[in-house]
């Protein structure tokens, strides 16, 4: 069997299986760990797509940053109090129906899609290529993103601090 095919299916299984586990677990900590498996699978898919920079960023930012934030919050709010309760709210069939409809519509759309012929990536390295694109064509959005992150940091500190502290 071709190695590419094998790794594609392995990483896809990790990504989708982890995602399925993450939304079905009772314990929020288990869900966070399942989400980590899923994010690792996605990182593997980036590697297969020759996006090495995103592979590394995915692991550092998502698994090292966002997931850690989730785990901290889970510890702070003692989510396990809700473990014995119902996990799905009473309108869940509506949500499931919307999802099925969306899935059907997108699947029909995709089955009719005609892709243009594939083009090769430029032969420069991936990091160099991203840096060129980011700092030449997308410099203003890059600065706006840094402003967004600053606002998010200040905002989350303001929201999470105790009243009167």
């Amino acid at each position: 069997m071709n190695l590419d095919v094998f790794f594609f299916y392995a990483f896809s299984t990790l990504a989708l299986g982890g995602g399925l586990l993450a939304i079905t677990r009772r314990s929020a900590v288990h869900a966070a760990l399942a989400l980590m498996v899923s994010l690792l699978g996605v990182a593997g898919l980036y590697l297969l797509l020759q996006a090495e920079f995103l592979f590394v960023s995915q692991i550092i930012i998502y698994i090292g940053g966002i997931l850690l934030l989730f785990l901290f919050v889970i510890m702070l709010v003692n989510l396990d109090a809700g473990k014995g309760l119902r996990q799905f709210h009473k309108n869940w069939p509506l949500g499931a129906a919307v999802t099925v409809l969306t899935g059907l519509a997108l699947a029909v759309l995709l089955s009719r899609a005609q892709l243009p012929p594939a083009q090769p990536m430029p032969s420069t390295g991936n990091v160099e290529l991203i840096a060129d694109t980011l700092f030449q064509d997308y410099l203003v959005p890059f600065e706006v993103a840094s402003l967004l992150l600053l606002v998010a940091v200040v905002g989350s500190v303001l929201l999470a601090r105790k009243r009167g502290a």
Partner: protein
Amino acid sequence: MITTMHYVAVSLAMLLIGTVGLLTRRNIVIILMSIELILNAVNINLVAFSKHHGNAAGQVFAIFVIAVAVAEAAVGLGILLALFRNRETVQVDEIDLLKW
């Protein structure tokens, strides 16, 4: 042979997993995790088409999506902490003060 459509199919499956988690779960933290799954599905799509077109712009957009996801998670979890301090619950259907 793995084509771009394979990656798009994986991305679609992940989007649906995220949507069903977002729309059916009661726990806010799981809902935020579902949003991360949806954003990851978008990223797979962007990177797959970036490779297909031989153009790095898709990967740059994926970086922006990651930055927005980080901001969203930080603010969302901050709101969650403030909410838990006031209402002592993280179940979305118990937070109905604004419901008529």
